[in-house]
């Protein structure tokens, strides 16, 4: 498997996962995030009901599941953007329920939004700079004296520019973020979250709508993050990506964690295939398969029509 990218952290992560049981809620050797009994209901609908889940430090963990499984809602609970009906979770051993969103982020757990939140009337570069933590110039009194924060600002800018280049947004650096295309916003969202230098970054469908060529080059970057010691938890529907970069996969359905395991195992799990992946979970369709599928579909349609005609 991708021997060329296997580095120290990756080996460590893989080693950690090696002997783990493939079952929901399995304890990890060195969890950075431990979640217990988190429940969130909307009226009669139980959006999230997670009994126990752990995320291994220094790994790339994918969170997958059908639409409406509760992945985003789960993220919202963990990061303080919504209040869970019950349950508790710890990050780095610290109890995090009830902690307001900004404190969650400061403690090193940063999330991105599925429906992007670009700061429209700030330039792309300013968007990026905003992400940096512990800025001296962000306290009122020090802000009044530019010399106190200039140096730090330059560093931040440099870092921001690096990231922008990486995310192919460098040409847009001085444009308003509001004028970005859908995909560019996704990119900005992710790049901005990385500016925080979090310990755990939670990406909510970072690559939906991003051009595949670019996605590919960004995956390398995500892997680098792991090498830098970051933990990545991401939601994604692109199975190629999941297979390529994740060390571990957690599957949610109807609010519950239904399966956990390494990508390959998960993708051959029949429940996962039923609930999520569908008939062709593997690789893109070959021409023949495509033909066949079409054929099947057509037949179905014909059958339907006939049925209707009978009525």
């Amino acid at each position: 498997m991708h021997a060329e990218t296997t580095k120290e952290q990756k080996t460590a992560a893989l080693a950690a996962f090696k002997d783990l049981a493939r079952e929901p809620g399995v304890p990890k050797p060195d969890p950075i995030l431990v979640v217990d009994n988190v429940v969130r209901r909307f009226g009669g609908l139980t959006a999230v009901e997670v009994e126990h889940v752990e995320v291994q430090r220094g790994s790339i963990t994918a969170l997958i599941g059908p639409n409406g499984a509760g992945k985003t809602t789960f993220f919202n609970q963990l990061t303080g953007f919504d209040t869970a009906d019950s349950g508790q979770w710890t990050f780095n051993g610290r109890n995090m329920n009830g902690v307001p969103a900004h404190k969650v982020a400061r403690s090193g757990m940063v999330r991105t939004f599925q429906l992007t939140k670009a700061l429209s009337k700030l330039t792309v570069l300013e968007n990026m700079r905003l992400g940096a933590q512990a800025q001296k110039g962000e306290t009122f009194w020090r802000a009044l004296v530019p010399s106190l924060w200039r140096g730090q600002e330059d560093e931040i800018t440099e870092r921001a520019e690096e990231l922008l280049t990486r995310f192919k947004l460098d040409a847009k650096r001085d444009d308003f973020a509001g004028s970005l295309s859908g995909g560019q916003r996704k990119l900005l969202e992710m790049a901005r979250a990385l500016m925080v230098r979090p310990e755990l970054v939670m990406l909510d469908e970072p690559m939906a709508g991003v051009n595949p060529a670019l996605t590919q080059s960004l995956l390398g970057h995500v892997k680098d993050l792991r090498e830098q010691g970051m933990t990545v938890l991401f939601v994604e529907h692109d199975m190629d990506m999941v297979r390529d970069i994740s060390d571990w996969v957690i599957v949610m359905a109807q609010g519950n964690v239904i399966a956990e395991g390494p990508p390959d195992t998960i993708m051959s799990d029949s429940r996962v295939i039923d609930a999520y992946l569908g008939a062709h979970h593997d690789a893109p369709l070959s021409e023949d398969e495509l033909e066949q599928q079409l054929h099947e579909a057509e037949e179905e349609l014909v059958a339907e029509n006939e049925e209707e005609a009978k009525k």
Partner: protein
Amino acid sequence: MNAVPESAPDSQAAVTDRSAHLAGAENAVLRCDELIAGYLPGVNILNGSDLYVGDGELIGIIGPNGAGKSTLLKAMFGLVNIRSGTVLLKGEDITNMKAHSLVSRGVGYVPQTNNVFPSLTIEENLEMGAFQVPGKFKERFEFVAELFPALKERRKQRAGSLSGGERQMVAMARALMTEPSVLLLDEPSAGLSPKLQDLVFIQAQQINKAGVTVIMVEQNARRCLQICHRGYVLDQGRNAYTGTGRELAQDPKVIELYLGTLAKA
């Protein structure tokens, strides 16, 4: 703007010359000629795009982020002001025509973002989809409910509280309510689970088989090229490559610049 493909598009699929376009566009259902359009004064996003769709064709548009794919669709649909160039629908000039009059001419559109009415329920969203043909609502509703059963269960839920994927379903379903004869889809598969992505592609194909002309913008480029008759690669507001889906999917240049090799592994 994004990086320009370094070498001029010179591979076999590279067809940017207008003669081919003009030839093909002769009897097109929908055609755009040298569109120039943009949002901000003085900044053009589309720099003379050409595009045509024949009757019953399924067209794919791919390209890097910010290339102007969405803008192209919006321009055709009257949501972005066209600065020069023309859009013809079945020979009729529809340049800068209001969106709602296009709907009555049988054009349907699924936007990429903000594609549901958040404060309306799912059912009402779909009702709006059938705004011009209220009589058909029941029948069409049954149809889309079968496609996306989740929608029927939740018909009274406000779309604003739906998950990203659920919204995408609503958006797709809304456009299918009218039985359009030309359908513009802007990344319909984004955010959907693999199973539903399949469904969307199959549906697109089926709808197309049923005689509907489809233009589809996709970042799931490989899948898109697999099912489409012809494809356009858009870069910097211009057509960089055109060709049949298969041609484009196999063009090494296109693969390198736009498709990536990941999925091939």
